């Protein structure tokens, strides 16, 4: 078990819960707007901690852990949603000189220690499960990596889907055709990054449509709100050193492929396609800017992972030291540009709508791609049976209220297939291929 992995995730966890405890940054986009209630004294810690727990706990189990387990990389959700809960639970006041207040100081130190321990235990726990899987007579864990393959290729079409959602099927089809054309030209020219080029072409077309789109009935953000935004943005700027530190740690974690920002990038990274993962992080970060910027501006509390570009620079950096510096710089720049971005989004409402459509189309594509990838992966473990189990599990989940996230049911079913063939082999009902 890699000690470096444990240490990095523990530091990221300690820092994450400390930032949440001091109201500097939280991970959950829904928790951020509630933070001023606490900071400005309208809500008690216990109440906020309960809300934070309600918002995040299910996501750690239902969203964070499944992807972390199937990819053997920590999906940041499983770490930082947990530290949101830890940080908000520990005491702390927001008055000046809080460090002299014993209770606040103990809350701060308690968050650091508990957050660190949580991070370390998360890595150890997941690794133990993976190790157990690998000890099974039929090792299926290697095959799981291939379930990300369809995502690597299918992802490039998301801008065309987003265009179709926002601007109609006609423009969507044109974008679709141009994306395919760009991919095949790049591929025929012998370029290795044909999918990346196709994605870039699609994103550019989407942005052009979005910037040109200025609905008349859309109201501008009211000026009183703009003033509040500026005031709260100042609070974030004051906390820049801590935010930069977080950026450095996150940059290192992404550089070493220890942690990753989302289900799409984590799956491609686990499949060994760093270039695809990198372009996905760019697209995801763009799509989250409006949401994260507006929630940060309205609350004065930043996002633990910034907009998400730290993951991009982390993946691109040639070494972990450069990743640390670049991560710190990137996250500081994100925090510093908040007011500017707020104004920009006000000017181009089409871009804000595009962001929502990007997130929708990425999710829909990922659902299809992980399902197909999981079916292929499960089938290469157990020909015939794999298709049956994954397809059955997917539909069963659908008709019972989609209790398991649609994106995660395929990978979970693939793991179950792996466990199942081990059990069947013991009782003689499965004969492993020679």
């Amino acid at each position: 078990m890699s000690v470096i992995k444990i240490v990095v995730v523990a530091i990221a966890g300690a820092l994450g819960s400390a930032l949440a405890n001091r109201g500097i940054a939280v991970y959950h986009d829904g928790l951020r707007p509630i933070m001023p209630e606490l900071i400005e004294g309208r809500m008690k810690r216990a109440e906020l901690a309960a809300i934070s727990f309600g918002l995040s706990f299910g996501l750690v189990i239902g969203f964070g852990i499944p992807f972390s387990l199937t990819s053997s990389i920590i999906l940041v959700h499983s770490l930082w949603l947990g530290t949101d809960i830890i940080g908000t639970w520990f005491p702390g006041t927001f008055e000046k000189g809080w460090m002299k207040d014993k209770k606040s100081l103990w809350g701060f130190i308690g968050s650091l220690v508990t957050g660190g321990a949580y991070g370390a235990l998360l890595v150890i726990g997941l690794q133990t499960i993976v190790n157990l899987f690998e000890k099974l007579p039929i090792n299926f864990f290697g095959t799981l990596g291939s379930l990300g393959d369809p995502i690597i290729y299918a992802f490039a079409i998301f801008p065309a889907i987003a265009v179709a959602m926002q601007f109609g099927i006609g423009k969507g089809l044109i974008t679709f055709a141009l994306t395919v054309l760009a991919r095949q030209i790049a591929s025929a020219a012998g370029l290795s990054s044909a999918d990346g080029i196709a994605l870039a072409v699609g994103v550019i077309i989407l942005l052009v449509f979005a910037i040109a789109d200025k609905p008349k009935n859309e109201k501008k953000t009211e000026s009183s709100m703009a003033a509040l935004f500026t005031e709260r943005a100042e609070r974030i700027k004051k906390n820049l050193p801590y935010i930069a530190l977080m950026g450095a740690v996150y940059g290192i974690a992404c550089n070493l492929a220890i942690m990753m920002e989302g289900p799409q990038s984590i799956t491609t990274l686990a499949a060994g396609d760093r270039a695809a993962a990198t372009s996905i992080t760019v697209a995801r970060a763009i799509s989250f800017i409006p949401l994260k910027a507006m929630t940060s501006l309205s609350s004065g509390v930043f996002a633990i992972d910034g907009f998400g570009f730290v993951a991009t620079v982390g993946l691109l950096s040639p070494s972990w030291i450069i990743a640390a510096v670049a991560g710190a710089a990137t996250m500081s720049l994100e925090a510093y540009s908040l007011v500017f971005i707020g104004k920009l989004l006000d000017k181009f409402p089409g871009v804000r709508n595009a962001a929502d459509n990007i997130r929708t189309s990425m999710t829909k594509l990922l659902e299809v791609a992980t399902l197909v990838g999981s079916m292929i992966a499960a089938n290469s473990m157990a020909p015939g049976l794999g298709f049956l189990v994954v397809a059955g599990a997917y539909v069963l989940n659908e008709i019972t209220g989609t209790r398991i996230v649609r994106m995660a049911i395929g990978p979970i079913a693939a793991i179950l297939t792996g466990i199942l063939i081990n059990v069947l082999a013991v009782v003689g009902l499965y004969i492993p291929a020679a």
Partner: protein
Amino acid sequence: MIKVNIGGMNTKEIKDLVEKFAEGKIEVKITSDISGVQEVLKGDADYYLGACATGGGGAISMAIAILGYSRCFTASMPGKPPRKEEIEKAVQDGKKALGFTCDHVQLAVPLIVQAILNNPSAK
């Protein structure tokens, strides 16, 4: 006429569903999260619905910022499908912004529309 604004993810799908179940009693419109919620605050619209991956994040985060947490409700989360009684109670309690996960759009929207139609006084 009850007015419902929709923002966040899967907006088209939600709009179609609201219209399908509203029996013509709800006027529904796709807005941005901010302007949609501001209209609810001013009383120009009655409800705001939003979906995101988690039901409580992007779906209602700006609603929480503008309307306050006490008027927002997460109707479903990953692993926790929407429940009729909870949604009924939320609407009766005067929750104005309701969020749910993209996975649960098909389950949550009909329940929410029904709850809104059943509680005209909560308007």
